């Protein structure tokens, strides 16, 4: 069972509250597709992903980035039940989408970097530690129903 201190709860709520999903979502997914190009295997229907600028201009990438990041809201609002919260999404990613769960870690890393770009020195070591702890719980939950 994951334990969250009051300070961690506050930090997560605060960081999430300041994240502009419409901006950070698209940037994050774009970075994943650019920095780890093999992840493009899941997005054959998205059109032109052939260069960094194409990825950054791609509307399907932008929209999907928003979808993915919006899904974090459930976890923020339910810190004590993240595993249960993502049970169905985990099954979906395993059974229907056939996504290698290592990709969750790649997305989490890119999200951390994009958040760092946006928050800058406010994203201090303690905040980074809490944020990464939160994302690692989300990643574990999304991997939990894989078989």
């Amino acid at each position, binding site marked *: 069972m994951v334990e969250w201190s009051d300070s961690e709860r506050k930090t997560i709520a605060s960081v999430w509250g300041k994240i502009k999903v419409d901006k950070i979502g698209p940037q994050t997914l*774009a*970075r994943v597709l*650019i*920095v780890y190009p093999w992840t493009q295997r899941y997005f054959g229907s998205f059109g032109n992903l052939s260069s*960094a600028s194409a*990825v*950054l201009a791609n509307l399907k990438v932008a929209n999907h980035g928003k979808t993915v990041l919006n899904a974090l809201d459930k976890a923020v609002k339910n810190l004590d039940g993240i595993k249960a919260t993502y049970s169905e999404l985990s099954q979906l990613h395993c059974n229907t989408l056939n996504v290698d769960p290592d990709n969750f870690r790649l997305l989490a*890393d890119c999200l*951390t*970097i*994009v958040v*760092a*770009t*946006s*928050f*800058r*020195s406010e*994203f*201090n*070591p*303690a905040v*980074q*530690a809490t944020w*990464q702890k939160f994302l690692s719980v989300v990643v574990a939950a999304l991997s939990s129903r894989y078989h």
Partner: protein
Amino acid sequence: MSLSAKDKAAVKDLWAKISGKADDIGQDALSRMLVVYPQTKTYFSHWKDLSPGSAPVRKHGATVMGGVAEAVSKIDDLSSGLLNLSELHAFQLRVDPANFKILSHNILVVLAIMFPTDFTPEAHVAMDKFLCALALALSEKYR
């Protein structure tokens, strides 16, 4: 995943912009590593103060970034260029190579914070590849 000519150019380009702040980058990356990945503190039990920005952290951050600078200058042949550093890490320091990834991640986070406009997705991928190649060169002599 070897470094293309484009990657090397991107790394040198980014390095030119950030090298003036190398010490700050090193200090911040190391500070974050020790806080976010507490298991890394096991390598520094001989330090009096492991808190962010402490004197030993600042000094060691500069040392580490000196190694990165050397790697940039020897980017065309990292494994032979970093032979001495590899032997140091393999036989004396014996740092578990998994930690190279951890430190690399924190270097990237610091670059994102300090150079948000320069650390574009293209710069990010080139730098990530470079740090991976650097880590590989450092682990050359391990076994």
